[in-house]
């Protein structure tokens, strides 16, 4: 297995508060890792570490691929939806500029690439719309296109299932499964039940990281990982029935 990114003994703190402690994680080619954990547990910090956006307080992050080969889909609520920018420009912004100060170059190739991605996601007709005119699902498709502009070897998605309808959610996961044939994927989600159907391995992050080398995880295990999570699944989305401890009454199955 070719290693893409390795995290060793990582500590990260913000304002003296330890967000990640002694975290070790290796991302290899073909991985499909689901990252779960409570809010404020350090999920987002972990992916910022994978993106090279945080300075380790201790430990190291070793990148075996160039930073531009890591695609990123941030949380949708971090984006200013009223910013005056067209969909096609959002997608094109995903392409790394080799010479950012030399803009007298032909852009046709880049535009065509962006349009092909939009076509693939079925949102080409929105190319000249302002980003704010889109629905949540359409917006996620556009941001997914943006994250694919550099043909990444590793794709990192931060809660892509928020603000989208169930139909789009399952469509998105099928798309990711297809993309996983070409690239490793790290998927952060609060919806353990749904993602466990698609991911290959799971990491629970709550200051510490517990790596779980399969996609089946029981609430008992979650508890032992100190990962207090409610397991929720929605109606028509296919999901794994999680192995359940006999006396475990906590397992909520909210439909």
């Amino acid at each position: 297995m070719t290693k893409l990114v390795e995290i060793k003994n990582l500590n990260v703190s913000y304002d003296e508060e330890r967000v990640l402690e002694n975290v070790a994680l290796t991302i290899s080619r073909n991985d499909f890792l689901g990252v779960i954990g409570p809010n404020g547990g350090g999920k987002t910090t972990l992916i910022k570490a994978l993106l090279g956006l945080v300075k380790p307080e201790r430990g190291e992050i070793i990148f075996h691929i160039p930073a531009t080969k890591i695609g990123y889909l941030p949380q949708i609520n971090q984006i200013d939806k009223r910013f005056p920018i067209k969909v096609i420009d959002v997608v094109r912004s995903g392409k790394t500029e080799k010479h950012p100060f030399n803009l007298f170059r032909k852009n046709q190739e880049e535009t065509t690439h962006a349009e092909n991605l939009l076509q693939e996601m079925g949102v080409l007709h929105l190319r000249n719309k302002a980003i704010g005119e889109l629905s949540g699902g359409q917006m996620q498709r556009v941001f997914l296109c943006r994250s694919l502009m550099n043909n990444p070897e590793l794709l990192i998605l931060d809660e892509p299932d928020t603000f989208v309808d169930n139909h789009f959610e399952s469509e998105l996961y099928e798309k990711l499964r297809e993309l996983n044939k070409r690239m490793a994927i790290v998927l952060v989600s609060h919806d353990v039940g749904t993602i466990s159907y698609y991911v290959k391995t799971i990491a629970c992050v709550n200051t510490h990281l517990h790596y779980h080398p399969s996609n089946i995880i029981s609430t008992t295990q979650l508890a032992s990982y100190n990962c207090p999570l409610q397991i929720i699944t929605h109606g028509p989305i296919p999901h794994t029935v999680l192995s359940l401890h006999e006396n475990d009454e906590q397992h909520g199955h909210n439909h």
Partner: protein
Amino acid sequence: MTSNMGTIIDLFSYDFFANAFWASLFAAITCGIVGTYIVSRRIVFISGGITHASFGGIGIGYFLGLNPLLGAAVFAVFSGLGIQFFTQKGKLREDSSIAIWWSLGMAIGIIFIYLSPGYAPNLMSYLFGSILTVSTTEIWLMAALSALLIGFFALMYRVILYVAFDEEFAKTTGLPVNLINYLLISLIAITIVLNIRVVGIILIMSLLTLPQATANLFTNDFKRMMPLSVAFAFIGSLTGLLVSFFADIPSGASIIFTLVVLFGLMKWFVFLRKKWLKNGR
């Protein structure tokens, strides 16, 4: 009407009015472009901080007998870079950092103007603007800044757009985000200082936001918002200038008032057009 047109043309034979005309044009170009960035990026409050911080430089300029605008430029650029630095380091909340620069600049300005011997001439023109007193040197400086901004935004358009839209994502694609931010904050500072004489410290925020709000009624595209803002800013400041001349009221306030009226009219126009299109179906 004819006599009025005649009067308007006659106005150009006065040097001061010709200067005011050019000042309106270059104010529109510089504020239209920079304001589009400010509004899109929601850093209006930062610009307010820089504007008021520059008053400290005006005070020191008076005290030392230098050109107050020179002092204002130094203060504006340093406060801009300072706000950017502290925000980027995350040591201080952005709004607190801005408020500190804002009030510190005003305090320094007041102290030094108080300490300056004699009466401070033109002080009011810095606070409330006086487009008719803009000097020929200042016009040339504004013209140079206009050329610089047009060149910079044309060359760097995509980089500026990407960093402004999603700074963190731009970092992951390898853009020099911090460099771009520092360059832009410096350009904002210089734009503010060179426009202080046109509408004044108190009112300059509106020249950076009102034409953009008006342009935003018609387009949601950063690239189109810039020239459209320039156009609305120019129409507003020229009309405001004429109104101030004929009604004999201060030019800064007259320009801002015209810009507000222009915004209101356009908003009403867009509303009527939408209604008409709906009924037409």
